[in-house]
């Protein structure tokens, strides 16, 4: 079924009786060309692009719960391409371009809203760092504008320009940045993949990876064994457990990141604003809730829930930066499991096991990468060559020291990002 305003109108007039499932619930087959472990945003988008761009449809996505149940459905929905290191820059640029055509491509309104992102800075040194970033963005073909304090005040007058502990010097404005409706992204890719013949198998937990003589043969699942020529691990926070089934250890630690949404409010924040000194970022959803988050809780966790010190730190940053949101009430908090890599950048690569591929290490920034990640990973899976915009995400970069991508400059060690 094709979605359109006309279809909504027609269904509305006929009692909304004609709607059909957005995707099937197929029984898993005994064998696929490619099995993707993980039905989150990245896995679904990988399946979609395998089918769409490479014509590979004998593909299954195995999801132990329900599709889109992980981080793609629990994040702060920010979409941007404002990276400044080689490796990241071209990749996120590529991903943003895919976002920009995504509704049309998927025939699904993911509500990608390019409302603009402003990264604040608070000193000359930070302005220099923002300039370095902005210049890289432009040289990559993306957009960036360096805002002075006055220009910033015009755009976001509600920030604390009076007595902020870290005074506002200005901001780096990325007009094409914005937000999207997170669940819709997962559902749109799921529907697109399903329509092209990919099997989305929910409630199917992978319990083993079959490897013979260094070659992958398939997987064991809670719904029986499935043979596969290639197996793609796209398990985000669970990557460590999945890789362990193939006898691998990864340079990944899983951490909890909390996020928050307030009760619905009339429009008051029109952009995405990020406050690095407070590890705080905020936007307002179309439903009116302020959606915001901060830094990790900073301890390894699979609990998908956090603790109060981080909650308070995030709220304190909000109160420091924009005291006008003080009376907004936090409705819900949640936690996601972040696959933190040592340098804060992802891994999209082959492994030492033939036919076994890895896509992980998205840290707390995986949402914006969903189209790009699936797109370049599909390319790697289909062609066994790195996509031109994803040559930097090598698994061995930590071992060799070549091409470490440390955007934050905190170091290429665990728990610094």
């Amino acid at each position, binding site marked *: 079924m094709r979605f359109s305003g006309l279809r909504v109108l027609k269904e509305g007039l006929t009692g909304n009786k004609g709607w059909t499932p957005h995707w099937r619930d197929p029984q898993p087959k005994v064998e696929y060309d490619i099995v993707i472990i993980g039905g989150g945003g990245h896995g679904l988008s990988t399946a979609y692009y395998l089918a769409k761009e490479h014509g590979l449809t004998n593909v299954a996505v195995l999801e132990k719960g329900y599709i889109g149940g992980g981080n793609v459905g629990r994040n702060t929905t920010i979409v941007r391409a404002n990276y400044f290191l080689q490796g990241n820059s071209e990749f996120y640029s590529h991903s943003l371009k895919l976002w920009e055509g995504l509704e049309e491509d998927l025939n699904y309104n993911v509500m990608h809203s390019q409302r603009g992102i402003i990264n604040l800075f608070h000193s000359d040194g930070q302005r220099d760092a923002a300039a370095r970033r902005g210049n890289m963005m432009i040289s990559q073909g993306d957009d960036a504008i360096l805002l002075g304090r006055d220009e910033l005040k015009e755009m976001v007058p509600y920030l604390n320009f009076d007595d902020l502990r870290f005074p506002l010097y200005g901001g780096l404005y990325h007009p094409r940045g914005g937000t999207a409706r997170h669940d819709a992204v997962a559902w749109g890719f799921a529907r697109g993949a399903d329509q092209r013949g990919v099997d989305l198998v929910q409630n199917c937990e992978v319990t083993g990876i079959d490897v013979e003589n260094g070659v992958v043969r398939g997987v064991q699942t809670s719904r029986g064994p499935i043979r596969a020529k290639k197996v793609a691990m796209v398990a985000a926070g669970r990557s*460590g*457990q999945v890789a362990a089934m193939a006898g691998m250890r990864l340079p990944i*630690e899983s951490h909890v990141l909390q996020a928050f949404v307030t009760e619905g409010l009339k429009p008051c924040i029109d952009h995405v604003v990020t406050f690095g000194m407070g590890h705080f970022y905020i936007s307002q959803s179309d439903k009116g809730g302020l959606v915001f988050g901060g830094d990790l809780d900073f*301890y390894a966790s*699979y*609990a998908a829930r956090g603790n109060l010190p981080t909650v308070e730190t995030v709220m304190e940053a909000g109160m420091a930066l924009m005291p006008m949101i003080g009376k907004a009430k936090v409705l819900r908090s949640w936690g996601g499991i972040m696959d933190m890599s040592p340098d804060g950048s992802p891994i999209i690569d082959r492994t030492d096991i033939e036919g076994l591929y890895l896509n992980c290490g998205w840290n707390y920034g995986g949402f914006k990468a969903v189209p790009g990640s699936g797109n370049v990973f599909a390319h790697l899976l289909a062609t066994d060559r790195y996509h031109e915009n994803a040559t930097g995400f090598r698994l061995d970069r930590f071992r060799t020291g070549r091409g470490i991508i440390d955007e934050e400059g905190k170091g290429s060690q*665990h728990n610094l990002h």
Partner: protein
Amino acid sequence: MRISCPFCGERDRREFYYRGAAVDLERPLPGAGADVWDAFVYLRENPAGETRELWYHEGGCGAWIVVTRNTVTHEILRTEHASEARS
């Protein structure tokens, strides 16, 4: 979350800094080779379950602590001073 500091007793998590897996205590010799060093600095068990990790009582007595903790339930099973946990 509350953590028992071997010196101060049970304290709020906010007093502590987290470093990560207690693997960091097992520093290889300089000549141990690239694989050993790669494993030391980068590769992690990252278990969903019990793990040993390093915390620093930064907002307290300044002790480095090895905490045995469950990453799924956040239950804390044991804490000890890092210098003792080594031996």
